[in-house]
């Protein structure tokens, strides 16, 4: 009976261009759901969601608050037949819905069972059967674990690109503390172990995951009970839907390697569901920095990098001085097509189980840059490593490596002999050093310098030193042929002469005076100080110029100097002193590459100024 009254096909026609073929269609109400207002919402009123059927189709509708009474009074019941008096069709996130402003219940029909087998209006079938589909509460589908949230599928303008059954699907990029109701669909790219701690405030535990989607990555942490609940759910490589409530807070950059300003904190009510559709897994995204560019990266920044594995060291264990815990570490040397190589340290299990063969391409995500030994890298615990990954950058490197000379030398960020304690390593020009003289303070500053020796002051080149190994104290010739050392309280027939040279060097920007001690002196003069002094003494006796010749020979040699600059006061006038800590012969290939890079920089600037 009622069947005849219902306007079959009305629903479909409502959404056609011509509009419904009757003015007031009659439909059956097959479901009513109450939506509690969310606390803090501007209009905290109950709303009712009603599913109406015209036997052929069913459709979701919202009762406008003005018409709420029809439900609250008990008039409208599940199964009732209603006539729509005033309504508005809307399309919300590819779903057609109706807003009912006015309707009347045709009580003469009473409440009936659902008539017929109405289908959803959309050609798109209802979302995956087993997945949580928050929207679709029609039918007797039991909602498996996490309950669908009370939806606010009002026909307000939604800016969320929700393509699946989850409304409010946000891109990770769009997450902020101001987003209220959001869902993200992301892949868990890494899961940390459960970490426990105990301090004065008490004990606790946490674990964190990194979540990735097509727009970005974000880190999420769960504490104590929430951690217990969620730890077994998360698995690396699986895609999840995560929905609010979940706190979005400013990221603690020192714990995370991800470039997101925010991070998530899971709460007790946060929903985490494994996504049914595991396709379209967002790929791990890398933002590679070339090894050659590392010098321009600030220390302590987190970067990604990819390179070819040139060297692998053995696993070593070191004990942390602070926590007395053992750490395993392994040093790798990576190189890439910027002709530069760098040390990269990996830790823990990654270090112990490292097996990649030499010359494989390895990509690293989450690597910290430090200025130890110039520039070096360390894989963070939250970082990851992929061997021979199937990404363009890796293929490019493979191609480059196969084409170039396998034994090509790479310039490294290391000093060829390790400088004490990772001091700064800027290669400076003489003009820059002289300019910066005024900035010198009492604490010494270190720099590198490539220059050629111009002139060696030959007045005093060496001092007599104690012959005892390790003691370099000046000895005094108290009696001829007997040299006395105060420290060792011993006398020696011959002193051990040690260089204390003052010499002038130049590069293309200027000249400056440097001073150095024995080791460097030997490299410059080409013989030991003892021999040099012997020749000097011979000269005096035989009236020869051999010593002068030797000093001459020492000139015109280029070196890489490691210089310490300090301000010292002589007779009340402050004067900068430049002392050579170490000197190295030039590696011409390396220097040539450095210069080539410099020249390239001119090209970049040129292009920006001129149009060729």
């Amino acid at each position: 009976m009622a069947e005849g009254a219902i306007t079959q096909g009305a629903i479909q026609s409502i959404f056609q261009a011509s509009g419904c073929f009757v003015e007031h269609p009659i439909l059956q109400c097959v479901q009513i759901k109450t939506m509690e207002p969310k606390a803090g919402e501007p209009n905290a009123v109950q709303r009712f969601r009603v599913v109406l059927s015209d036997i052929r189709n069913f459709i979701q509708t919202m009762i406008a608050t003005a018409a709420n009474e029809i439900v609250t009074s008990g008039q409208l019941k599940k199964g009732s037949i209603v006539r729509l008096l005033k309504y508005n069709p809307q399309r919300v996130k590819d779903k057609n819905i109706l807003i009912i402003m006015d309707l009347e219940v045709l009580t003469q029909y009473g409440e009936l069972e659902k008539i017929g087998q109405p289908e959803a209006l959309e050609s798109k079938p209802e979302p995956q059967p087993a997945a949580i589909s928050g929207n679709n509460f029609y039918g007797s589908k039991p909602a498996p674990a996490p309950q669908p949230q009370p939806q606010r599928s009002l026909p307000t303008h939604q800016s969320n690109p929700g393509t699946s059954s989850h409304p409010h699907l946000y891109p990770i990029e769009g997450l902020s503390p101001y987003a209220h109701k959001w869902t993200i669909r992301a892949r868990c790219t890494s899961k940390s172990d459960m970490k426990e701690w105990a301090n004065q405030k008490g004990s606790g535990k946490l674990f964190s995951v990194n979540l990735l989607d097509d727009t970005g990555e974000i880190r999420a942490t769960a504490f104590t009970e929430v951690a217990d609940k969620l730890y077994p759910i998360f698995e690396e490589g699986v895609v999840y839907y995560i929905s609010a409530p979940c706190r979005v807070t400013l990221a603690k950059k020192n714990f995370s390697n991800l470039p997101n300003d925010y991070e998530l904190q899971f709460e007790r009510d946060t929903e985490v569901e494994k996504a049914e559709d595991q396709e379209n897994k967002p790929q791990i995204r890398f933002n590679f920095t070339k090894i050659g560019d590392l010098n321009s990266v600030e220390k302590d920044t987190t970067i990604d990098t990819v390179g070819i594995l040139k060297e692998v060291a053995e696993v070593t264990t070191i004990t942390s001085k602070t926590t007395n815990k053992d750490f395993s570490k392994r040093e790798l040397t990576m190189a890439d097509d910027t002709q530069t190589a760098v040390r990269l340290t990996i830790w823990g299990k990654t270090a112990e189980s490292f097996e990649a063969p030499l010359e494989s391409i390895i990509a690293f995500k989450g690597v910290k840059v430090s200025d130890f030994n110039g520039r070096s890298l360390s894989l963070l615990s939250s970082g990851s490593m992929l061997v021979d990954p199937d990404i363009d950058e890796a293929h490019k490197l493979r191609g480059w490596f196969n084409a170039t000379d396998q034994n090509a030398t790479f310039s490294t960020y290391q000093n060829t002999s390790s400088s004490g304690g990772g001091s700064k390593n800027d290669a400076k020009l003489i003009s820059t050093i002289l300019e910066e003289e005024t900035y010198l303070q009492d604490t010494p500053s270190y720099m590198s310098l490539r220059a050629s020796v111009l002139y060696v002051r030959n007045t005093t080149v060496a001092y007599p030193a104690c012959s005892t190994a390790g003691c370099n104290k000046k000895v005094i010739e108290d009696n001829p042929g007997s040299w006395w050392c105060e420290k060792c309280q011993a006398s020696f027939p011959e002193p051990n002469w040690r260089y204390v040279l003052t010499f002038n060097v130049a590069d293309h920007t200027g000249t400056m005076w440097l001073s150095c001690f024995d080791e460097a002196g030997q490299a410059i003069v080409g013989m030991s100080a003892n021999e040099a002094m012997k020749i000097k003494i011979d000269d005096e006796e035989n009236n020869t110029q051999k010593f002068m010749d030797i000093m001459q020979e020492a000139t015109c040699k280029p070196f890489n100097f490691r210089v310490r600059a300090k301000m010292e006061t002589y007779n009340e006038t402050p004067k900068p002193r430049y002392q050579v800590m170490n000197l190295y012969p030039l590696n011409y290939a390396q220097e040539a590459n450095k210069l080539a890079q410099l020249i390239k920089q001119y090209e970049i600037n040129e292009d920006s100024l001129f149009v060729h």
Partner: protein
Amino acid sequence: MDHPQTPRILAPHLSNFQHRIVRVLGKVVQLRGDMAVIDAGGNVDVILNRDSHLAVGHAVEIIGKVDQNLYIKVQAATDFGTGVDFNAVNAVVEATHRYKEIFYDDN
């Protein structure tokens, strides 16, 4: 003695420098009697003279004239041994051509 200009080139530049005297630094790939093949950004055939003694695998600097079919007739050859970084060499050549006003006349 007046030394002619000898711009540095690599294999791809050969066609631009026909009938000119050039300088090429490359790695000796093959020796074939009085001809040799060196690799300088590509293979270059060189016609040796009696004084040139090349060793395979060594770097060599050839000064010679580029002929019609892009061979180089060697006028002088200097062995540079094995410690040459060819990336640096290529960078030099590229810089030369980028700023050719400094290095040679291009009439």
